[in-house]
């Protein structure tokens, strides 16, 4: 499949994630959108990795050219998991303080 389809899809997912972060009020939904952005970049990495491999196969049967992309994806997933745990801990603390998870109540930096 031409690489453009993957790029368009990743772009769409990423922008949906961004808009979600900017617009939603529920902290957990914001988290899900952050995950969505991370996954969009993962998708892009894997797609490019496959593209390079397919291109290199034409010249060399035994090539490992696109392996960095797929390796990097693992790192991103690990980071995402760690981030989720920390983030959820923060949300719990937030709930304990203001008994809600509406981010609009976090405005003590106002003025």
């Amino acid at each position, binding site marked *: 499949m031409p690489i453009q389809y993957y790029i368009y899809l990743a772009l769409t997912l990423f922008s949906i994630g961004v808009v979600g*972060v*900017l617009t939603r009020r529920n902290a957990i939904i914001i988290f899900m959108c952050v995950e969505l952005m991370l996954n969009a970049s993962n998708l892009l990495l894997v797609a490019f990795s496959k593209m390079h491999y397919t291109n290199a196969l034409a010249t060399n049967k035994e090539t490992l050219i696109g392996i960095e992309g797929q390796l990097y994806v693992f790192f991103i997933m690990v980071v995402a998991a760690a981030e989720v745990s920390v983030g959820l801990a923060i949300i719990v603390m937030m709930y304990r303080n203001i008994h809600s998870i509406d*981010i*609009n109540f*976090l405005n003590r930096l*106002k*003025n």
Partner: protein
Amino acid sequence: MNNLVFLVPLFPLLGFLANGLGRKSLSKSLISIIGCTSILCSFILSVLLFSSVKSSGAINVSYFNFINVSSLCIPFGFQIDQLSSLFLLIITGIGFLIHVYSSVYMNDEKTIHYGRYFAYLNLFVFSMLLLVMGNNYVIMFIGWEGVGLCSYLLIGFWFKNNSYNYAAKKAFIMNRIGDLGFLLAIFWIINRLGTVSYEGVFANFNKLSSYDLSIITILLFVGAMGKSAQIPLYTWLPDAMAGPTPVSALIHAATMVTAGIYMIVRSNVLYSHAPSTQNFIAIIGIATALFAASIALFQNDIKKVLAYSTVSQLGYMFLGLGVGAYTGSVFHVMTHAFFKALLFLGAGSVIHAMHHEQDIRKMGGLRKYMPITNITFLLACFAIAGVPPFSGFFSKDEILAAAFEKNPIYYYLGVIGALMTTFYMFRLYALTFLGKFRGTHEQEHHLHESPFAITIPLIVLAFLSVFGGLIGIPEVFAKNAHWLANFLKPILHANEIEATEPHVNNNELIMMAVATTLILTVIVFTWNKFKRYENTETEPTGLKKILLNKWYVDELYDILFVRSIDFIAASFKNIIEKSGIDGIVNGIGTMINYTSRQVRFVQDGHVGSYILMMVVSMIAIIFIWINDGTIIQLINKIF
């Protein structure tokens, strides 16, 4: 002897520093001793220098380079030649007498002010010495400015009185106007000749075109107009009588006002080759002489009469310069220093005895109470009137004889001026010393002769006023007896032989006799008219009122210059300063304040808006990063 030249101005400078810095800690007697001995030491050195110059000629020493830029080198040096040494004697001699006089006259002051007074007086003598001793125009200008400054400081000595401060400001500002002319002349000389030293300028004056010469000489004369109180810059001198009387004697009779004459005599080479300027000087001189004499006729304050008399006599000196009688003018400077200082000091003695009453209508009959002051004042009046054989006769007659050579009208106007001088001086004498005392009984009880420190200088000056003319006996009386002319010949350059060579005019004896007779007649007339004066004056009318109000010149200057400058200054203050500059500066502050208040709302505490701004700016950065080249092309096309 050359090594000691620098000591002459050094003593007064040290006296200034000692009295100025120590005015709180020294006692009055110590202050006066420091002040007087510094001038005495300078006087002794001046006598030594004078005899040295008389025997062996001029001395010229340079100490260091005052200004040294590329081709222009202005050394700081002293030139003691015949003219300088003569002036040195006058300045330090009369300065010393006045210091001694002041030590008693100013005794009522507090010690701090006493010390300040002597410090200023010493600073004045220092500046005046710099002026006459410098060997180039720039050093003269330093002294010139210095004496202007000291004049301001001393006129406004009693600074708690606001009108005295105005008088001091007026003197300084009018001096400054003249100084502008002087500075322009110096710049012109530097531009044309590349040097300002006297030797350099006078040796190379041929390189100046006649246009250059006339401009330079006129600009120098403008400087002299301001310093020596000629029309139109003379109005500061009568107001300067606000200062203490010894100050008036020293500064405004004997020394500072003669600085202009010194400068012109020093530059006699330039002036002798600029005949149009010389005519101008002569006209201004005689006009000032007559104008000031007319104002002095009806003044009622002792010091004002003497002030206008000074302006008038200065006019005579400039008349002498204008007709080329340089020796005559220097001679008149000398004799005028003697008798005018004597007149002022005598007036001070009278004022002191009358407890600071200066109106002559309230005096009278002081002859009985103050004999020494009376005699010396009378001798000075004879000297200033020009009665032979007093000193004033010889000097004034020399000027008038030279004026007659140039143009008889100068002579006739000069004689009229001399008669007016006689009239107002003897009116002053008669109203002060003759007749009955017209003051209060209170004042009468306190009248007594002044102490020795006041009367001794009076006696010395009287001696000089009577016999000082004998150094300049004219040709008609004795062949080649004019000692002063022979002495000053080296500084008056060879081309001016016709000015210094003695003229023997056949009619001169007759003219002298006629003039003297007229003067004696006026003396007798005035004596009799005013010796029985009763104060029955009504409000003056007509010409007398105009003369009493000084021809309304001060009012004229006020309307012409002071009001317009005040208006310009006020408009600058209100429009440009308050609304303009202050508006801009305050406006920037207000604008920042306003902007920050608006920008504050960015921080509203909503995390969402923060993230939105972050995302937007990231998009912008990436956009710019990708399209770097096209953006630069766009900017280059616009600019």
